[in-house]
């Protein structure tokens, strides 16, 4: 009996058990204190769909051997530029959302390739260098936001006529278009088919990518570069593919995030964007060498549900807000835990 129990625990992983247990306690408390459990689940699902693609962006860099993509802001910034171009044109609704993605992807490809070239020259230090690449591009882009030639009065400061605002409302553009698409109710839980469907569609696309010749070559290059070379695979090129793909996913991810949030946040907002995504995939059981789509889905659900439910429930029980503190402890603690273990978050 005991060895089997131990095996099961090992299979699921201690961090996931602790978090799932904690979540269960929160839901029980919510139920006992007459809070609306369906409402909590509804909110959680929205958060899952909102963040999912950003978490998915971690998968290509892990499997191509670069590790966690701490340079996620690079892709996020490309996405923001794409969204801004779409808004500048005055596009709204689904066309606006699609246009944002269409504008963002080529930018992300170019920027991602440059980022990959940089990472190539710092082999073995990718994660640390990536962190600082993210930080410094965010800073450089602050200047860009001020100087950029956008003219739409909705986007720029009312006084002076130059420079983008800190936070842009998406209500008149593509705000919530996916959230409000194909919504249905199930046991009192409101489910946004558009938002979750979009996330699952991307999961499917990435899953299919990993079954192509290119995807398999990339996994081989990440798992054992010497093996890959002996099989005629260009390892450098595969790493570039992984980084570009991750950057593109980050760009799409932030557009989905923004449409769900209803606001586009510029300047320093993208600075810490990588950390919740990193934490989520690690909680999902990914290691620094291996990540799967199921790690993404499980991790996003556990992490985002925890963040969404902890605030209202804890504030009901204890006076005061500990959810922000809890978020920092859990996300950074999880990153620390995973980075200090040879097997990663497992």
């Amino acid at each position, binding site marked *: 009996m005991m060895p089997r129990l131990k095996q099961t625990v090992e299979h699921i992983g201690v961090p996931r058990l602790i978090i799932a247990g904690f979540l269960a306690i929160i839901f029980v408390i919510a139920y006992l204190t007459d809070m609306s459990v369906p409402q909590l689940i509804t909110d959680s699902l929205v958060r899952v769909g909102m963040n999912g693609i950003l978490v998915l962006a971690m998968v290509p860099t892990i499997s191509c051997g670069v590790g966690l993509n701490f340079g996620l802001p690079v892709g996020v910034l490309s996405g923001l530029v794409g969204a801004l171009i779409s808004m500048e044109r005055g596009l709204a609704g689904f066309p606006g959302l699609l246009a944002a993605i269409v504008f963002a992807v080529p930018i992300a490809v170019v920027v991602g390739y440059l980022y990959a070239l940089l990472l190539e020259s710092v082999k073995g230090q990718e994660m640390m260098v990536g962190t600082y690449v993210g930080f410094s591009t965010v800073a450089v882009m602050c200047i860009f936001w001020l100087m950029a030639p956008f003219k739409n009065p909705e986007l720029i400061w009312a006084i002076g006529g130059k420079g983008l605002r800190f936070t842009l409302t998406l209500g008149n553009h593509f705000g919530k278009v996916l959230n409000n698409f194909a919504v249905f109710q199930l046991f009192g839980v409101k489910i946004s088919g558009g938002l979750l469907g979009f996330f699952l569609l991307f999961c499917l696309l990435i899953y299919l990518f990993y079954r192509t*010749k290119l995807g*398999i*070559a990339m996994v081989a290059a990440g798992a*054992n570069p010497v093996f890959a070379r*002996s099989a005629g*695979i260009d390892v450098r090129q595969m790493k570039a593919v992984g980084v570009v793909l991750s950057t593109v996913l980050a760009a799409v991810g932030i557009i989905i995030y923004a449409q769900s949030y209803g606001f586009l946040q510029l300047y320093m907002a993208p600075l810490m964007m990588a950390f919740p995504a990193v934490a989520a995939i690690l909680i999902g059981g990914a290691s620094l060498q291996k990540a799967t789509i199921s790690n993404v889905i499980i991790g996003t659900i556990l992490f985002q549900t925890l963040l969404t439910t902890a605030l209202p429930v804890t504030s009901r029980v204890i006076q005061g807000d500990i959810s922000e503190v809890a978020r920092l402890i859990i996300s950074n603690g999880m990153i620390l835990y995973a980075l200090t273990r040879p097997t990663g978050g497992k």
Partner: protein
Amino acid sequence: MERAQQVLEMKGITKQYFGNTVLNDVSIDLYPGEIHALVGENGAGKSTLMNILFGMPVIHSTGGFSGEILIDGKKVELLSPAEAMQMGIGMVHQEFMLLPGFTITENIKLNRETTRKNALSRLFKSEFLDYLDTPAMRKDARHALDRLDMSIDEWLPVAGLPVGYMQFVEIAREIDKKEVKILVFDEPTAVLTETEADRLLGSLRRLAADGISILFITHRLDEVMAVADRITVLRDGEAVARLNKDEAVVERIAELMVGRRIEKVDLPPRDKEPGDEDLAFTIDNLMVDMPGEMVRGLSLSVRRGEILGIGGLAGHGKLGIANGIMGLYPASGRVSKNGDLIPLNSPEQVLLEGLAFVSEDRRGVGLLLDEPIERNIGVTAMQVQHKFLRPWPRFLSGLRLEDRKELRAYSEEMIRKLDIRCLGPTQPVRSLSGGNQQKVCVAKALALDPEILFVSEPTRGIDVGAKRLVLDLLVRLNREHNVTILMTSSELGELRKICDRVAIVYRGRLAGILPPDASDAEFGLMMAGRVRKEAI
């Protein structure tokens, strides 16, 4: 010849790693001022024996060893390198353990500095706060260097010194330790040029004359002959011979190192025996820059349909041949198949030409350890030859996905044909035994349908039963599928067992080609570079 008390005796040393016996009842002893050479091929157990002598943690964490070690006639327990050092055992490493930014003196004296007391260190009663006595340290370093006949200045930084000098600094550090009476040299000449090596041998003699006993590990037999007083030959974890200097000849040692009684098996005959009139593959003036296994201008012709063995002592370049041709290490020269030149330095091109390779480094190069068996088998063929792919969705012919059904069927066939013992095609290869991993490597190469198969050290690190299976498999491939095989191996016995001809490589060049039934002495002679004989 009975002399004074031995400084070191290791008696009946037996060591097992995970049930695998790597040393079996090995005894070795050492007299004061003697140079005792320990020779053997890679994997013969030399390093394990030295790890035991040094009390390395790896020995004790894997269950210790049996047998006893006596120093000056007294039984000792060496549980850590620090204890070994206290007992007067010094070690000169293969890789230099020096701090490049420090001077020669500082490196020699590291952590054994001569110090002077000062007010603070007296106050805190701590030697960590002492001043360094640099003049005294330099004097000691100078003395150690002089004993080695090194005129180099002791205040130079180590960074930027020629490699050979670094080796001497390393030795100087060991002999500067006053208590040192036994010095172990682990292949000290591996990275040295010939003149440097000669100087090193000179210093060995001088040190021995000073009364230091030396254990000299190497596989360069000329050096052994030049300096050793006695020679112990290790093979497969057993001490197969102990020779005195006067009774040792190079050929005899080479023979002992690699020789093994061969059970002659009758290989299945072919319809037509391969001959020189039909060549599958020619190598002309091949140079390969593979560290430790350099190939320096090797020429060789391979007959269609034969199994050609490539043998030679370690370090002479036999492993470099396949690695160079397959594009894993920089190579130059002319290599042609059926008369057409094959582009070098591009693994993909070479694979497309119908060559395949089973690497000697199974876990490092040959496998994706955490991926399932089927992916390991299929990935190279998929990348190079677009096998195991199918269009998806059906109407979009440009897009192709992995064809899991086909790959699964092929893997299952391979598992059955090669008798790979596993739980199924989805088991990760890490959890397979060495022999079964090797079979996966062979299956991976077969998926490419190769015309010519390079196999390096196919039986290294796998147990005896599996060795036979792997060799039988190679014979079957050769006879049934008409694959021309170039098999590189350190085990002369297995080369002679299944090969049609055995090419011997010496110093990166072809020394000659022998029939498998040539005598041990002929092989020994050729491996020691004593004859140069063109094709039989």
